[in-house]
C-alpha cells in the first residue's frame, strides 16, 4: 500500500472508530446513529483533502444513493485550503494564456480573493475591450475574477481517485455495500470531476444561464471573458456583493429582501420547469446579493436537467405539495420514476399526508427541509428506490428554501411556489399539442352536458 493509501486508511479507521463511539457501538438507534456516522464521514472527507472534499460534495447531491442524514451533512463540507503560492499560479496562467498575468491583464492581484479545493480566484483588470457571449461589451479597465485551477490539483485528485478505485473494488465485494454500486458510483463522480476540472464547461453553462435569464433584470451572471479562458483558467467580470452568509440586517434594509427571496425561488422554478436545466449546486457561497438588490449566480459546476414530460409532472407534484394533496403528489412522482409497490401505496400515501400536515400545512411558515428529510427517510424505511433526478430535485428544492431564507428569513417558499406552479400547469395545458389532445374531449363533454 502506498503512503497515501496508508494515510487514507488511517483517517478512515480513526473516523470509523469515532462514529462507533458516538453511536455507542450500535446502542443508539435510528436517526441519532445515522447522524453520528454522517458527521464522521464529513470530517473524514475534510481530513483527506481536495479529492475527497469534492467527492463528498458530489455525494451531497445524490439522495438517490445516500441517506438524508449523509446528504444534508455533506453539504456542510468546507474547503479550508491555504492559498497556493503566487509563483505557481503565475506559472499556470502563463502556460494557459501564453504570457504572464501582468502582461495579459492590466493588473493582477497576487493575493487570491477566494480559495477552494480545485481552484482559487484572483482579482484582475481587463487590458482591452472584450465582447462577451451574452450582454454588453466589457470595456478595458473592467474588474475581473480569474479562477485558476490549483497547481497540482489534477495530479493529486487523479492519485486519490486511484486509491479510491481500489477501495471501491474492495467495498463492492462486501454484500451489504454492493447495492451502492461503489465502482459505478465512483465512475460517475470521476466523470463529473473531470468536467469540473475543465473550467470551460463552467463558462459555457454560465453563458447559457445568462441567456436564459437575459430578460430578468434581477438576475446577474458574470460575463465570461473567453479570450482569457482556457481549460485551467476561467476569467469573468467581477461582481461586487454580499455572500448570503454575510447578509445582515443592515444589508437587508437597503434592498427589497422579501421580494428578492421570492424572486430567487421563482428563478429556480423557471430553471426547472421552463428551461429544463437548473443550477444543482446552490449554496450560500455560490450566490450573493448585489448592493443594488439583484441576485448574482456563480459556480455552475453541477447542472440538473429535466425533460418536458418531467417538467409537467414536477409542476403537478409542486401543486400537490402546495395544496396538501398526497395522492396527487404520489401519482405524478410515479411519472418521475418513483415506484411505490402496490401493496404499500396506502401506507406511503398516509405517511406523505402526515408529513405534509406536519411540515407544509400547519400554522406558521412551511418547512420544506423538514418535509424532504422526513420524505426521504420514509422512502428509505419502505426500501423504495429514489430515482437520481428525483433525488437531485428534492435536494435542490431544500437548498432553494435555505437560500431564500438566507435572504429573507420569514419567507414561505411553498406559498411562493404556488402561483408559479399553477401558472406553469395552465401554460402547459394551453400548449397546442396538449390542446389538440384535450379540446375535442372537452367539447364532447360540454356537448353531452348541454343536450342532456
Amino acid at each position: 500500500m502506498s503512503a497515501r493509501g496508508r494515510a487514507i486508511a488511517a483517517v478512515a479507521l480513526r473516523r470509523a472508530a469515532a462514529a462507533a463511539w458516538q453511536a455507542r457501538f450500535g446502542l443508539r438507534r435510528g436517526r441519532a446513529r445515522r447522524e453520528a456516522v454522517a458527521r464522521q464521514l464529513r470530517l473524514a472527507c475534510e481530513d483527506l483533502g481536495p479529492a475527497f472534499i469534492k467527492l463528498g460534495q458530489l455525494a451531497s447531491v445524490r439522495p438517490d444513493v445516500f441517506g438524508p442524514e449523509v446528504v444534508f451533512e455533506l453539504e456542510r463540507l468546507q474547503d479550508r485550503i491555504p492559498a497556493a503560492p503566487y509563483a505557481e499560479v503565475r506559472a499556470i496562467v502563463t502556460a494557459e494564456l501564453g504570457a504572464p498575468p501582468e502582461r495579459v491583464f492590466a493588473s493582477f492581484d497576487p493575493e487570491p480573493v477566494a480559495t477552494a479545493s480545485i481552484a482559487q480566484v484572483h482579482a484582475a483588470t481587463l487590458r482591452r475591450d472584450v465582447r462577451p457571449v451574452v450582454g454588453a461589451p466589457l470595456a478595458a479597465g473592467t474588474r475581473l475574477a480569474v479562477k485558476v485551477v490549483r497547481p497540482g490539483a489534477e495530479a493529486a485528485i487523479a492519485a486519490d481517485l486511484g486509491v479510491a478505485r481500489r477501495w471501491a473494488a474492495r467495498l463492492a465485494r462486501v454484500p451489504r455495500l454492493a447495492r451502492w454500486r461503489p465502482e459505478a458510483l465512483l465512475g460517475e463522480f470521476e466523470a463529473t470531476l473531470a468536467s469540473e476540472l475543465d473550467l470551460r464547461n463552467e463558462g459555457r453553462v454560465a453563458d447559457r444561464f445568462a441567456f436564459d435569464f437575459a430578460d430578468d433584470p434581477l438576475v446577474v451572471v458574470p460575463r465570461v471573458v473567453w479570450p482569457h479562458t482556457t481549460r485551467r483558467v476561467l476569467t469573468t467580470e467581477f461582481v461586487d456583493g454580499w455572500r448570503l452568509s454575510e447578509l445582515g440586517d443592515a444589508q437587508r434594509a437597503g434592498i427589497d429582501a422579501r421580494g428578492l427571496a421570492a424572486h430567487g425561488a421563482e428563478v429556480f422554478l423557471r430553471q426547472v420547469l421552463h428551461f429544463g436545466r437548473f443550477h444543482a449546486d446552490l449554496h450560500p457561497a455560490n450566490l450573493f446579493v448585489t448592493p443594488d438588490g439583484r441576485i448574482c449566480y456563480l459556480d455552475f459546476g453541477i447542472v440538473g436537467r429535466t425533460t418536458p414530460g418531467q417538467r409537467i409532472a414536477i409542476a403537478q407534484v409542486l401543486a400537490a405539495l402546495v395544496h396538501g394533496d398526497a395522492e396527487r403528489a404520489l401519482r405524478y412522482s410515479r411519472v418521475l420514476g418513483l415506484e411505490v409497490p402496490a401493496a404499500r401505496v396506502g401506507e406511503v400515501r398516509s405517511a406523505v399526508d402526515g408529513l405534509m400536515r406536519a411540515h407544509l400545512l400547519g400554522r406558521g411558515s412551511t418547512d420544506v427541509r423538514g418535509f424532504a428529510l422526513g420524505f426521504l427517510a420514509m422512502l428509505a424505511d419502505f426500501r423504495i428506490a429514489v430515482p437520481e433526478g428525483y433525488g437531485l430535485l428534492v435536494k435542490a428544492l431544500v437548498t432553494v428554501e435555505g437560500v431564500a431564507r438566507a435572504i429573507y428569513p420569514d419567507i414561505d417558499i411553498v406559498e411562493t411556489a404556488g402561483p408559479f406552479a399553477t401558472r406553469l400547469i395552465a401554460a402547459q395545458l394551453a400548449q397546442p399539442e396538449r390542446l389538440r389532445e384535450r379540446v375535442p374531449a372537452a367539447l364532447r363533454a360540454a356537448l353531452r352536458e348541454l343536450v342532456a
Partner: protein
Amino acid sequence: MAAVERGRTTRVGESAEGAEPFADALAALVADEKDRLRRELTGGSAAAGGTPPELASALAALRFEVAELRGRMESLQASVDAVAARLGERDPAGEEG
C-alpha cells in the same frame, strides 16, 4: 355528421324550436369551433416561428449560438497562442499590446 350538416343549414331562430334543432345547431357550432381550432393549431405548428415574437425568439437563439461558437473559438485561439508562445513562434500578448 348528419346532425352537423343539418345544424349548418339551420336558420336563425330555428334552433329554439325544440331539442333536435337545438342539438343540431349546437353540434354544428362545436364542429365549426373544432375546425377553427384545428386550423389555428395546425397553422401555428406548420408556420412555427412565424409570428414576430416567435421570429424574435428564434433570432435571439441563433445569435446566442453564433456568439457561443465565437466564445469557443476565442478560447481555442488563446490555447493555440499559448502553445505557440511556448514554442517561441510568437508572443500573443505582445501582438495585442
